[in-house]
């Protein structure tokens, strides 16, 4: 579809997406959300994916982290063409390589903070006790070790978010995907969270993608990819001025 | 779950454990509550074929014990009051032994009357003989007189008449004696008939009269006065359903058990089969019972035994001919 020839993948790239097209069926008509995206996410960087609602940034990020099949195109995550994997292999790939921080946190309400943070380890088959110990190390790092035995509903929003961050990092994934981490926070808290994320999530060999449209934190990015109507309109260290 | 021992959860730990315990208890209750549908061995021994008959073709029948002579219902030839009963049930009597007497006063009176008539006749005979002798002497006297005038003709005729009268009186008296003797004999027989004697040697089985009771020769519907029979040996009369008759091996011994003592098994020898097939007699003592089955009655002799009594019901098994009955199927 796209006229331009995509450049080959950089071997260093954490994610290399090429020619990503995604269409959704909407009744009789087909809506094309992404129009042939080429994007590279590099390790050791905090990359922002920015765009208005409906710009396709959620779709792009879903495709890049292997939870949504693209209509066309290929995605290599750390060199693995993830959409050539079988369903189960893809799920296990996500489990081993990707950490998620959801906007709603999606913590399991009936298990305590430590167990929630340990979910990826438990899913990997780590015994419960060991998984919780490892999760607690991370909770300690996030300064909420004292909340480890509390249920999510007993925690404040910020504490819940820290638990969610711990869950994303507990299994030491190479890619961390973070959806609107500051949307529900005031400016100061937002910056604190971003500092925290940079502290724990950004490391050599580990990529961190932040999906956001919160302009208060744009200055914290290593790199910003701007999406408009399913196309990348900007890719650079700073935000373009028209935003 | 051991991770949170301090938070013992009702719904996660106590409830499932209670559920498991509950299921086990319920299972135990259900299993132990299953009804006892086992076959039970009879507490008392029912009649059954034993020994060789247990596995061989056989015919079963029910019967009654009876004396070898069958039961003799002693009757009385004459009606009257019973004055004396000489026997009791269970007594053994010889042939001709007195069983009971019926009031014989009337018979004795007529005997006395006849005896009196005999004496009277005898007296009349002697009187007539005397008169005859006197008349004859007188007549001889008259006849020895040669002188016709010594005695008148009329005198002679009178003497002749007297002699003839005496002779006929003697004849009459003799006849009366004979009649009186006959009457005495009749009276004596009567007396004899009022004494009932045993027709055969045997055992008294029942006595249904007592002194003072009236025995009647008519009617016949009432109980027999005395029952007796020859109980050595005892016989059993076994009813065999007419449909089974063809299968019975006639002449073979029978295995007999008295009712209520089925563990006793006595072998009885074949005596005879009744020639007639008769309607089955009810053995249940129920007057209302009527049946239309016919049976052949077989008579078997029981060995000496204390266990059988006349009138007792028995169950019998008799060998069957090796007929169409298949031994193994």
């Amino acid at each position: 579809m796209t006229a331009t020839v995509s450049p080959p993948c950089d071997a260093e790239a954490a994610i290399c997406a090429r020619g990503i097209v995604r269409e959704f069926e909407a009744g009789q008509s087909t809506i094309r959300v992404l129009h042939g995206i080429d994007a590279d996410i590099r390790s050791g960087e905090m990359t922002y994916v920015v765009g208005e609602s409906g710009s396709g940034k959620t779709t792009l990020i879903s495709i890049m982290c292997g939870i949504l099949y693209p209509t066309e195109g290929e995605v290599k995550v750390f060199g693995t063409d993830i959409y050539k994997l079988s369903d189960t292999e893809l799920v296990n790939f996500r489990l081993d390589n990707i950490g998620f921080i959801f906007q709603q946190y999606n913590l399991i309400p009936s298990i305590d903070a430590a167990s929630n943070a340990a979910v990826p380890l438990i899913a990997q088959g780590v015994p419960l006790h060991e998984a919780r110990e490892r999760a607690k190390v991370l909770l300690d790092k996030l300064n909420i070790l004292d909340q480890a035995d509390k249920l999510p509903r007993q925690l404040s929003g910020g504490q819940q978010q820290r638990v969610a961050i711990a869950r994303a990092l507990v299994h030491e994934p190479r890619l961390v995907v973070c959806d609107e981490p500051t949307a529900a926070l005031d400016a100061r808290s937002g910056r604190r969270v971003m500092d925290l994320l940079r502290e724990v999530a950004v490391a050599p060999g580990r990529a961190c993608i932040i999906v956001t449209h919160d302009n208060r934190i744009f200055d914290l990015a290593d790199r910003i990819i701007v999406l408009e109507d399913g196309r990348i309109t900007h890719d650079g260290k700073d935000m373009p001025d028209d935003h | 779950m051991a991770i949170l021992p301090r938070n013992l959860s009702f719904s996660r730990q106590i409830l499932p454990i209670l559920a498991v315990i509950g299921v086990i208890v319920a299972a135990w209750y259900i299993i132990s509550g299953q009804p006892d549908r086992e076959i039970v061995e009879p507490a008392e021994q029912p009649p059954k074929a034993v020994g060789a008959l247990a596995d061989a073709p056989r015919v079963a029948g029910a019967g009654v014990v009876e004396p070898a002579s069958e039961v003799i219902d002693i009757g009385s030839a004459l009606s009257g009051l019973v004055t004396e009963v000489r026997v009791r049930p269970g007594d053994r009597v010889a042939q001709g032994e007195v069983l009971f007497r019926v009031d014989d006063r009337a018979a004795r009176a007529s005997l006395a009357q006849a005896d009196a008539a005999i004496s009277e006749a005898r007296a009349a005979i002697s009187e007539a003989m005397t008169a005859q002798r006197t008349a004859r002497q007188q007549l001889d006297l008259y006849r020895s007189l040669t002188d016709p005038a010594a005695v008148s003709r009329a005198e002679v005729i009178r003497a002749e008449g007297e002699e003839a009268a005496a002779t006929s009186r003697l004849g009459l008296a003799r006849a009366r004696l004979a009649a009186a003797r006959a009457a005495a004999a009749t009276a004596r027989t009567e007396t004899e008939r009022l004494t009932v004697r045993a027709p055969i040697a045997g055992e008294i089985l029942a006595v249904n009269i007592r002194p003072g009771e009236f025995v009647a020769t008519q009617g016949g519907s009432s109980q027999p006065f005395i029952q007796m029979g020859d109980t050595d040996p005892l016989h059993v009369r076994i009813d065999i359903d007419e449909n089974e008759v063809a299968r019975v091996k006639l002449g073979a011994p029978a295995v007999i058990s008295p009712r209520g003592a089925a563990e006793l098994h006595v072998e009885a020898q074949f005596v005879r089969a009744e020639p007639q097939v008769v309607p089955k007699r009810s053995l249940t003592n129920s007057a209302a019972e009527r049946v239309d089955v016919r049976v052949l009655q077989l008579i078997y002799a029981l060995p000496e035994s204390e266990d059988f009594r006349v009138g007792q019901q028995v169950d019998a098994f008799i060998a069957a001919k090796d007929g169409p009955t298949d031994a193994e199927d």
Partner: protein
Amino acid sequence: MLWIAIRMLTGDAQKFYGLLFGIAFSTLLITQQMTIFVNLVQRGASGVYNAPEAEVWVMDPVSRTTDVSYAMPPTALDKVRSVQGVEWAVPHLRAVANVRTKEGDLEGVGVIGVDDATLIGLPARMAKGDKSVLFAPDAVAVDDTGSLRFFPPEIDPVGQRLELNDQRAVIRGIADSIPSFTSTVVLYTRYSNALNFVPGTRNRLSFVLVGVSEGQTPSEVAARIERETGLKARTREEFAQAGIDFIIENTGIPTNFGITVFLGFVVGVAIVGLTFSLFIRDNIKQFGALKAIGVTNAKIVRMVAAQAGLVGLIGYALGVIGTVVFILAFSANPFFKGFYIPWQVPLISLVAVAIILAITGFIALRSVLKTEPAAVFR
């Protein structure tokens, strides 16, 4: 992961107990109704089970059950005794009579005449008195139904007189018997007494009870009796089944109980299905998150199965315990006398619970499995 699943389930107490209630209610309804049904139709065979010695029942070819019988001539007993393989055979009379109680009430009763000498045909146990009391003249043993029906509790039935078809009968004992389907009062007496009590018809031998020689099976002997005597012979099991079939064929009981059991099943599916679906819907985001994080569908299925299994185990246990408690609570009621829970019934309800959970779990799972993990970003 299963630990998480269980936590998720029990974390929502309302729905958890709702699910338990649904399963427990279904189990209770199915188990309890089937138990009553089985016991009720088995009452049709009570006459057979009340004569525990008999291995084979011989009857007129037109007789159908212990209560629907046509009498045979008395020589039938001897005919049966003549058959090889018959260890013993005794007469058995079953008839109906009218009893006038002291108060003057008229009541139809069953009269059972058992063998005079051996008393074969009496129930296995006597509730009061010994079996040998029947040897007394005019003695009858009343069954426990009758002892309760005829006499107020403060009166000891033993020694009481009854007027049975104008004959005097003295109650000498109480038989511990299984009540009949109609709960008719039954008087046990000796065969010869029974002939007196019951108005005379020509033939009165209702049944011949047969014991089988060692080494022979009842069905072999029954077949031989049929062939050689022309009478109808049934093994104990066959005849018990005949009594049950008679009830099933001639009453609406199977339909009624079938409907109730079906309703129990439907109610179970409805309650459990709705609650389970609601529960899954409430947790759909968590499931979505788990799927995104990297939990395979197979693991999700196992999680839901574990949830269903826990609900099933506890709910089923509650239902079965409820049934047991019900049966225990009513065991004193004469109507429920001898009621038991056939071991097959809890297994059937277990299968029903499994089916309910499989159906509802499958419905609930479908929405989870269909959930796109990407949905968590929206």
